[in-house]
């Protein structure tokens, strides 16, 4: 036991805006009227915290989740859904696999199916399969993808028409950054100006902010500081280091 109490109360990401938005989307799909479609789209640029948000929703609702791979076929997509649904070794033709997936999804009609990297389903002309699964199982299905996903879905009119709600992930604002700092900086003192700098340098991307806050916390631990105001190291921006000039290489 330390003589200085440390604030170690476990905290979740529930208060982040993107987490609340994703959870709201899933809840609205689950509680929709019987005549309404049950597809939802959660889209936004890479790093905005879609994964964090969808993991929270997955853990809250016991959703089945698959992440579409670049090499996937219809069979591998359906087998992945079945494996995540608890079938150890799915077998059969694509039609058989689709039938089994519909049965599993239909068993618990409130249990959502989350499909990450759903852009790839559109590119590979597999999105109609999602519509088929939804039509027959009535399970809520959340398509997660990059910011172009809504535009790509327009090409498949029948699927596009079954989207009940579109939710765009937003970059972290100062309030989100404060909440992340409360989790990852613990009891370290920090000013809003510094947090806003971290947010700007991280381009509002949740994962970069977390990387930076973790580095800052480590820096404070190593220096024995109780405040991070003196942080003087670089912040992670995701930008690769610039090429050094010849005179720099020579140590000039």
């Amino acid at each position, binding site marked *: 036991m330390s003589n200085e109490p440390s604030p170690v109360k476990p905290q979740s990401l529930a208060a982040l805006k993107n987490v609340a938005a994703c959870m709201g989307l899933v809840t609205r799909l689950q509680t929709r009227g019987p005549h309404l479609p049950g597809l939802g789209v959660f889209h936004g640029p890479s790093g905005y915290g879609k994964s964090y948000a969808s993991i929270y929703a997955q*853990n809250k609702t016991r959703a089945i989740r698959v992440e579409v791979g670049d090499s996937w076929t219809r069979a591998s997509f359906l087998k992945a859904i079945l494996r995540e649904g608890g079938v150890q070794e799915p077998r059969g033709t694509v039609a058989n696999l689709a039938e089994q997936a519909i049965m599993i999804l239909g068993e618990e009609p409130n249990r959502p199916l989350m499909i990450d990297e759903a852009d790839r389903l559109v590119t590979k002309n597999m999105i109609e399969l999602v519509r088929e699964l939804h039509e027959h199982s009535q399970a809520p299905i959340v398509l997660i993808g990059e910011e172009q996903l809504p535009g790509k879905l327009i090409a498949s009119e029948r699927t596009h028409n079954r989207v009940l709600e579109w939710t765009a992930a937003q970059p972290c604002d100062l309030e989100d950054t404060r909440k992340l700092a409360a989790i990852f900086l613990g009891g370290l003192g920090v000013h809003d100006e510094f947090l806003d700098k971290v947010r700007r340098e991280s381009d509002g991307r949740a994962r970069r902010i977390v990387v930076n806050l973790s580095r800052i916390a480590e820096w404070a631990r190593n220096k024995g500081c109780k405040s991070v105001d003196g942080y003087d190291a670089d912040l992670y921006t995701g930008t690769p280091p610039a090429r050094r000039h010849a005179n720099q290489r020579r140590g000039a």
Partner: protein
Amino acid sequence: MNISKRNWQAEWDAIRHLGSLGNFTADAIIAHVPQSPVVALHTWLNALVKLGHLKGLYLGKDAHSHHRFAFHLLSADAKAPAIPRMQMDHSDRARARDQLWTTMRVLSTFSLAELAAVASTDEIPISVNMAKHYVSVLARIDMIRFVGAKSAGIMRLKPSANSGPFAPIVRKNGVFDRNRDVFFAFAMEVAA
């Protein structure tokens, strides 16, 4: 030890009374509530410090080299504070384990703090210690690897260990993978 089954209100009442008089020790609480289980009481006091209800004041070591603390009351609550981890029953622990497993399967790499925060929900909060325990057990059977220098604390679930949706169950002498129906025994540690 199942602390959740115990009603801590009598001990909390004693803490509030003693706290109104000044700083106090665990022995003073036991003097007020003699039926208090000593080990569980110390665990509970530790949790109350960490949650900010009490402040711990280090008094040094006693004759048996045990660290001794006095406590200062910071909370004004009349009701004994809830301690999330201690209130976890078996099903909550299973959910916490499922949440950790789900999270490490989705995140390509993670630190313990990130894993605990992302895996936590409002219903089942997960502490860094809880995440550390589960991760260290999985690391013992080589399911988890460090990415880069160990000191950086960044880990990943090995792709070959990502066997399916059901979280591996920790047993006394190993880990049971429900997805493959396989039991991984801990390697015997040979004393040097």
